[in-house]
């Protein structure tokens, strides 16, 4: 069961995830348009439906995965207990906070018109990124625990005799 301290770190990780997204989300949108203009194919943006898909995939990696990763990295640095449970929290907090911000400041109907880019990819990206970030600093610990387990079990069996 996660402890209070772990939950607090998870919440802070969620805050880091949200703030990173808040900074990157506009940069990401503009970056793709700038890249297309620089490549001399700005006109491709007229094909709105296909470009929406391309933008969703682009922002998934650059913004949502990265934001989740940074949030999870913080949590992984602060704790190595109950990671499987804890690491879902930063991603969910970040996603919910950004969704609320967009709904309050912008037009909530964008969520209906672009479910893939506004809900599916952000939530999935944040959660996956969070797990990847959290386990980046704790991967060797996880591997050691898996290696130690058989010898510990053997010791118990010997004592039992």
């Amino acid at each position, binding site marked *: 069961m996660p402890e209070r301290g772990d939950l607090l770190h998870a919440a802070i990780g969620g805050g880091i995830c949200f703030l990173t997204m808040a900074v990157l989300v506009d940069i990401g949108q503009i970056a793709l348009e700038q890249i*297309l203009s620089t490549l001399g194919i700005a*006109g*491709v943006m007229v094909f709105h439906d*296909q470009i929406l898909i391309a933008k969703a995939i682009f922002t998934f990696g650059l913004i949502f*995965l990265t934001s989740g990763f940074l949030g999870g990295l913080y949590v992984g640095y602060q704790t190595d207990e109950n990671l499987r449970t804890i690491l879902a929290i930063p991603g969910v907090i970040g996603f919910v906070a950004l969704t609320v911000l967009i709904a309050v400041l912008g037009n909530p109907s964008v969520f209906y018109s672009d479910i893939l880019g506004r809900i599916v990819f952000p939530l999935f990206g944040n959660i996956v*990124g969070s797990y990847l970030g959290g386990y980046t600093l704790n*991967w060797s610990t996880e591997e050691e625990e898996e290696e130690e387990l058989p010898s510990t079990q053997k010791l118990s069996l010997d004592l039992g005799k």
Partner: protein
Amino acid sequence: MPLLAFLVLLAGSCLASFAVIYYTLVTNQSTNRPDYFRLRSEFFETEFPMSWFAVTWVNKNETTGSIGEAVIASTNLFAALALRVYDEGAARSYLAENRLTDPFSVVVFEANRLYNWSLQDNSNATLTFVENGTTSVSGYEAVFSRVLIKGGIKQEEAFYNLTSMFIVFRAQQRLAEIVSWGKEEDWRLAQETFKAILGLTKV
């Protein structure tokens, strides 16, 4: 390992995004000119340079009819072209509302509308009809006028001359307007592109 997975996902998403863009580019590339895109709607077909910016939309009204529109703009010159096609109902409504009778009256009306817009920023702007005539667009006879509005456009607190060409024609029951405009020098530089777009437009 997780770091590697993150980097692979990040790179993969960028590659996948550009794969979608590349596919879009290839499937919409013009067969006439490889550096042009083909743009199709229920109202018109046209082609424009890949490096130019474009938007297209339809105004639908159950009572008055529908209008298909597109704006194609240069990304490095102050010059753009607008295409507007009224369906039968919308054409009837537009002509009646503005008391217009034929394509030339539409040309004069739209030129004056642009001039009135310029006057909002510069009350000293003057309108001159430089050239009038007829031409062929999409197999239809079209009326055109080229106008010069001195001091017609304001940019960074300075006024520049605005050149605009209005082309109007009836395509069976539809009404089509093609307007190009820009700062005088930029319009001249973009003229070849405007001619190319015009030649590739079908209503």
